[in-house]
């Protein structure tokens, strides 16, 4: 006889010892049964009390099913019939689930079992089993079965099943070693689960599950289909709504889950094929592949990538277009990843960058050299428009390099040479050198919302490197603006993509054409040339915190004239006292004046600019414009210490109001 729980139970029951309790007028029979064991079921301390009125009570001290243990299980049958042919229990009740009532009948000769469990709201579970046939068979019908009843059977580490309704059928076949074949067709509705932290939870899940499994020895071959039709799921940090379908098949040996083939249909994304080998004991992925062609990138990126990029530059970005992915994972690491993008668009929510018409094929291998091709039609980086370009990047492991990348910027070109990107100790580092061919200052200034400038901007970029969150420029950046030169050196930019970028460096401008400069800023006209040095410049969040700036007429012979309006504006910068310094009688007569030197310095510390003039006396009245020629004018400064914000306000007023000189 095959060893089945129900048969073992009655086998033991009949071989147990029988006790006739007294007195006879309240006769009851108590049967105590030795332990019952089956493949996955064990019961200890089984005691059956048969009452005179036809009722029966079944007490089990300990009932074990797979890893679950129930203690002091009590079943009461209001009507219990036991004959040589069959056993029947009607209006049965289980202490552990008082809202359930059940009936069961077992025919000893045909070895057929019928069990029906029911509860309020038309909830019903019906089991029809035939233990005579080989293999034995059991059909389970579920109608409005409440999912919460399964909660006690789930592993404690799983989120708690809060609610849910199951309908469908479950067909089981088995032999002496237990269930050997299972077939389930279930509809799930209003399913909800949650863990204590709320980081893994679902609500109103609805869908269908079809599962077939066959056991050979210890190994199960399975095939399943899950159609998730509705509801929402939060699995930190992912949030997904229904609209996914999964078909999968594989093996399970109790320790390892092999997915030999799975196809996931993701709404608005497309079809993904995957395989996996999962070590259930260690909870690690041993092997895996993932392949998808012509996938919709918008939802793929939003649902599955961006939630992991909360603290990165891409935290507020969107990716659209279509793409292919092919991922190979072996020996605990990604061995190959090929990504192709077609007509993709990457947009930053904070408008820092945008790339449009991106086409790329990136065939990356962990230990082989390969070439990636990336191109795009247009883009914007921090306000600077970028034109169409195509790059070839060599890849080897975590090292990426390109001999030359040409990036069209405005109407010029940024040539990036010896670009390299590598990962050392989990940190990404990169570096390059390059040159900027002339960019129209007019286009640059309009793009950056600066006053419209004229001329061209070009220069050499020495070695630029980024490591330890710091961008460093070794050597000097050289640019040409306003017909003069600008040398920027000792540039260090800490955390450029973070919350509080901090820049330090020195700036040295030589022989800027004041005529071009003042025309640009509507400052009134000044003719001549000027040198400006800014040492110890420190910007925090792109705002100046400290610097030593000095502005002085360039050495050499050239025409030096200053207009009445420029004089007035320089005076206005000096504050109310400055106006008194004007030689008012001259102002009435002449439109412009000669000068011999212009000089102004500002040392910014603690939000205060300490100013000085041509001579740099440090105290008393100082000269900003020293007169020379005919007619000559001196512009004097009176206040050595001016609040930085106040100075900015004055400068803004002068530039924005296009201030007209008022001479009295």
């Amino acid at each position, binding site marked *: 006889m095959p060893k089945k729980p129900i048969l073992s139970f009655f086998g033991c029951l009949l071989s147990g010892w029988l006790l006739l309790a007294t007195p006879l007028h309240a006769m009851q029979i108590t049967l105590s049964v030795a332990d019952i064991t089956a493949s996955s079921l064990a019961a200890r301390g089984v005691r059956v009390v048969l009452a005179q009125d036809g009722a029966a009570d079944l007490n089990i001290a300990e009932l074990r099913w797979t890893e679950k243990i129930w203690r002091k299980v009590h079943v009461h049958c209001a009507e219990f019939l036991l004959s040589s042919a069959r056993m029947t229990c009607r209006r049965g009740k289980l202490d552990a689930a008082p809202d359930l009532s059940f009936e069961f009948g077992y025919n000893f000769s045909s070895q057929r079992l019928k069990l029906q469990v029911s509860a309020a709201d038309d909830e019903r579970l019906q089991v029809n089993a035939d233990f005579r046939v080989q293999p034995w068979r059991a059909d389970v019908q579920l109608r409005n079965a409440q999912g919460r009843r399964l909660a006690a059977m789930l592993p404690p580490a799983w989120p708690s099943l809060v609610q849910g309704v199951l309908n469908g059928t479950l067909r089981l076949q088995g032999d002496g070693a237990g269930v050997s074949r299972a077939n389930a067709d279930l509809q799930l509705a209003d399913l909800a689960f949650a863990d204590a932290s709320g980081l893994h939870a679902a609500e109103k899940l609805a869908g269908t599950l079809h599962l077939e499994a066959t056991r050979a020895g210890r190994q199960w071959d399975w095939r399943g289909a899950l159609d998730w039709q509705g509801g929402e*799921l939060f699995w930190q940090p992912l949030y997904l709504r229904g609209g996914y379908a999964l078909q999968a098949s594989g093996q399970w040996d109790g320790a390892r889950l092999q997915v030999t083939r799975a196809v996931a249909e993701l709404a608005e994304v497309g079809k993904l094929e995957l395989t996996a080998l999962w070590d259930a004991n260690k909870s690690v992925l041993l092997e895996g592949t993932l392949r998808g062609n012509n996938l919709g990138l918008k939802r793929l990126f939003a649902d599955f990538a961006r939630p992991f990029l909360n603290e990165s530059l891409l935290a507020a970005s969107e990716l659209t277009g279509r793409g292919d992915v092919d991922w190979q994972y072996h020996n605990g690491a990604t061995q190959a990843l090929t990504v192709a993008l077609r007509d993709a668009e990457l947009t930053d929510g904070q408008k820092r960058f945008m790339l449009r018409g991106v086409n790329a094929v990136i065939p990356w291998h962990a230990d082989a050299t390969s070439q990636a091709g990336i191109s795009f039609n247009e883009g914007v980086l921090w306000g600077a428009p970028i034109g169409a370009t195509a790059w070839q990047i060599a890849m080897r492991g975590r090292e990426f390099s390109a001999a030359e990348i040409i990036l069209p910027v405005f109407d010029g070109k940024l040539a990036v040479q010896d670009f390299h990107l590598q990962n050392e100790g989990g940190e990404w580092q990169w570096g390059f050198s390059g040159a900027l061919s002339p960019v129209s200052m007019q286009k640059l200034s309009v793009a950056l919302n600066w006053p419209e400038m004229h001329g061209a901007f070009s220069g050499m970029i020495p070695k630029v490197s980024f490591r330890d969150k710091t961008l460093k420029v070794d050597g000097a950046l050289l640019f040409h603006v306003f017909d003069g030169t600008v040398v920027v050196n000792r540039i260090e930019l800490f955390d450029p993509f973070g919350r509080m970028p901090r820049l330090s460096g020195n700036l040295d401008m030589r022989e800027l054409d004041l005529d071009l400069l003042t025309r640009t800023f509507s400052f009134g006209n000044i003719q001549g040339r000027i040198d400006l040095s800014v040492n110890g410049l420190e910007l925090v969040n792109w705002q100046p915190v400290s610097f030593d700036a000095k502005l002085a007429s360039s050495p050499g012979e050239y025409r030096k004239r200053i207009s009445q309006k420029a004089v007035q504006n320089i005076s206005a910068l000096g504050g109310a006292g400055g106006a008194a310094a004007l030689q008012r009688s001259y102002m009435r007569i002449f439109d412009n004046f000669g000068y011999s030197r212009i000089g102004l310095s500002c040392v910014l510390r603690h939000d205060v600019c300490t100013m000085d003039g041509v001579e740099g006396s440090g105290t008393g009245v100082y000269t900003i414009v020293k007169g020379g020629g005919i007619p000559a004018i001196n512009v004097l400064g009176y206040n050595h210490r001016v609040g930085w914000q106040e100075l900015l306000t004055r400068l803004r007023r002068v530039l924005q109001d296009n201030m007209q000189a008022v001479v009295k």
Partner: protein
Amino acid sequence: MNYLIKFWFALFALCVSAAAFAQADIEVNTPGVAALKQSMQARHAQLAVFYASGAVGLAADGLVALRDASAVPLSARQTVNGLVAAENQDRKALYAEIARANGHPEWEPEIRNTFAQRWIQRAQPGWWVQSGGGWARK
């Protein structure tokens, strides 16, 4: 004798460093501090509702933490994640910036501790704060 000298020296160093930190100006205002405070202030209106519901609490390390996500509808849990991440980035930057503005970047941990206590002291009744490793409702 050597030990005695070392002890007094250590005590002296401790007092000096404590006294030195006592001079830290945590109200220092720089463009960076102002920008961070403004950013945090703008976010506060969004976070306040989650402080009140207990979803987010004020942690003992001067940061905020997702304490009980179940107090938030499923569809809003990613939003809370994003707010907590952004707030913590600002807070870390704020402590570093105040230490730097004081001319002592190495004071960042002490400044962070001072702020942690201050945030918790100023928390509104009903908000959750972390103390002694556990969470308590203020």
